[in-house]
């Protein structure tokens, strides 16, 4: 049987843990709400951006822009968006599995988030840059990342640039997703986005493309200015999606942890009570079994004047001290009402014998 004090100590430590996980759960829930709102707020912009692109598409020759041209080479650069902190379930592990299964050995990486950066660098992968993103994600922080990626592509270091991130589907479900950022495929630009989460759910063709739009200064110049915005926005959106995923995953993980801890506390308390009850029972048993020796040696040798009926508790204590077994009299006095009452009942039985 486990030691009473050990169990009490464990209960206390589990309670502390539960308190921490509960606090983390609440914090994550609040942050998740913010991240979701942010992703939803981006939707208007995405819709507008898409409308303009749909209109543009009718006006320019495909494959005319460098950012739209598919290349033959296989050199790939992947932006991996993971989390900075742990305790968010299998989020990063799932993303890592996806990254490993979808990218070749020659793929180079750019990372956001410490978790996968550590794993990838341990594996000896080629890492060319790392970015840190605040929480909540400011739009301005997507710019250096998208600019860096675009530059790598335009300088010809890489032929394809993709982003691996956790797509926020629901609070319970985050899906590791890999999208191609560059070259922008002319099929997907201005089409429905593949993000199914709160971010994008863009319905293309909201504007009648047959409308005869005039472009100022010129379609090409508008395209030139618009594509970087589009790339920037995609990077931003993946960052926001990842954040929303992170917070919801953490919230769910912490909720599970809190529930587990509560269950554990319940079990431990039960075990503690059982152990305590068993200890009391054995104490009482020993009292009854030691009764004959108690009567023959100690009590009988006492002067009669020291034996009033009300002095039994005192004499019990006195007996504990003199008893040969390892008794802890104090624990007897500390026991709760029920056992004290049981003890009194037993003592009352003993009285006539004494």
């Amino acid at each position, binding site marked *: 049987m486990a030691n009473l004090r050990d169990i009490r100590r464990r209960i206390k430590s589990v309670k502390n843990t539960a308190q921490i996980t509960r606090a983390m759960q609440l914090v994550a829930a609040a942050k998740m709400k913010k991240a979701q709102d*942010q992703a939803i*707020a*981006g939707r*208007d*912009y995405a819709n*507008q*951006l898409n*409308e*303009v692109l749909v*209109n*543009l598409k009718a006006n320019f020759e495909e494959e005319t822009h460098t950012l739209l041209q598919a290349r033959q080479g296989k050199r790939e650069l992947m932006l991996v968006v993971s989390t900075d902190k742990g305790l968010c379930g299998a989020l990063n592990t799932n993303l890592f599995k996806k990254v490993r299964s979808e990218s070749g050995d020659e793929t180079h990486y750019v990372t956001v988030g410490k978790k996968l950066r550590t794993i990838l660098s341990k594996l000896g992968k080629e890492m060319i840059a790392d970015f840190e993103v605040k929480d909540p994600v400011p*739009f301005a922080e997507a*710019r250096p990342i998208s*600019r860096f990626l675009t*530059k790598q592509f335009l300088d010809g270091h890489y032929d394809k640039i993709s982003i691996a991130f956790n797509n926020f589907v629901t609070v319970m479900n985050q899906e590791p997703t890999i999208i191609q950022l560059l070259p922008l495929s002319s099929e997907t630009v201005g089409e429905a986005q593949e993000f199914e989460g709160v971010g994008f759910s863009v319905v293309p063709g909201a*504007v009648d493309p047959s*409308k*005869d*739009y*005039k*472009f*100022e*200064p010129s379609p090409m*110049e*508008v395209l030139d*200015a*618009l594509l970087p*915005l589009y790339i920037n*926005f995609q990077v*931003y959106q993946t960052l926001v999606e990842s954040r929303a995923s992170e917070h919801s995953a953490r919230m769910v993980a912490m909720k599970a942890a809190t529930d587990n801890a509560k269950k554990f506390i319940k079990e431990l308390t039960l075990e503690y009570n059982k152990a305590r009850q068993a200890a009391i029972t054995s104490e009482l048993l020993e009292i009854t079994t030691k009764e004959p020796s108690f009567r023959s040696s100690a009590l009988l040798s006492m002067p009669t004047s020291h034996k009033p009926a009300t002095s039994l508790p005192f004499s019990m204590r006195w007996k504990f001290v003199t008893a040969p077994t390892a008794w802890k009299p104090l624990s007897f006095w500390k026991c709760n009402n029920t056992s004290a009452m049981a003890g009194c009942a037993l003592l009352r039985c003993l009285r006539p014998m004494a």
Partner: protein
Amino acid sequence: MPLHLEIVTPEKKVFSDTVANVYLPGADGELGILPAHGALVTALAPGELRYEKDGVVTALAIGNGFAEVTLEKVNILTDMALGDDQIDAAAAEEAIQRAEKQLLSIDHAAEIEEVAHLRLQIAKSLAQLKIKRRHH
């Protein structure tokens, strides 16, 4: 015929209402849009956007972006849209000074993009100051 104006930034929808007219800072100069304007897509330069609603003219400082104009609506897509009360003149001036200092310190030939970005920052801050100064 009503003219519906919508201004959105990546972070939120700033404005969505019916207005009498809109003046936009286009890449090639200011454009005045009245209801029933022809379909147009234009790049925007950082500057001042004005719209009139119920006889009141409101000005916003906007960043670069796009405007899509159709017969009955104007959609503005920009990275900044600040009203008079949201502009911090001191912060804008500081941003200009910081950007100008940076402009002096970097290699203009090698970092074309960075230079363009800094110039854009300056233009955006100037647009803010312009709005602020007009109204005080």
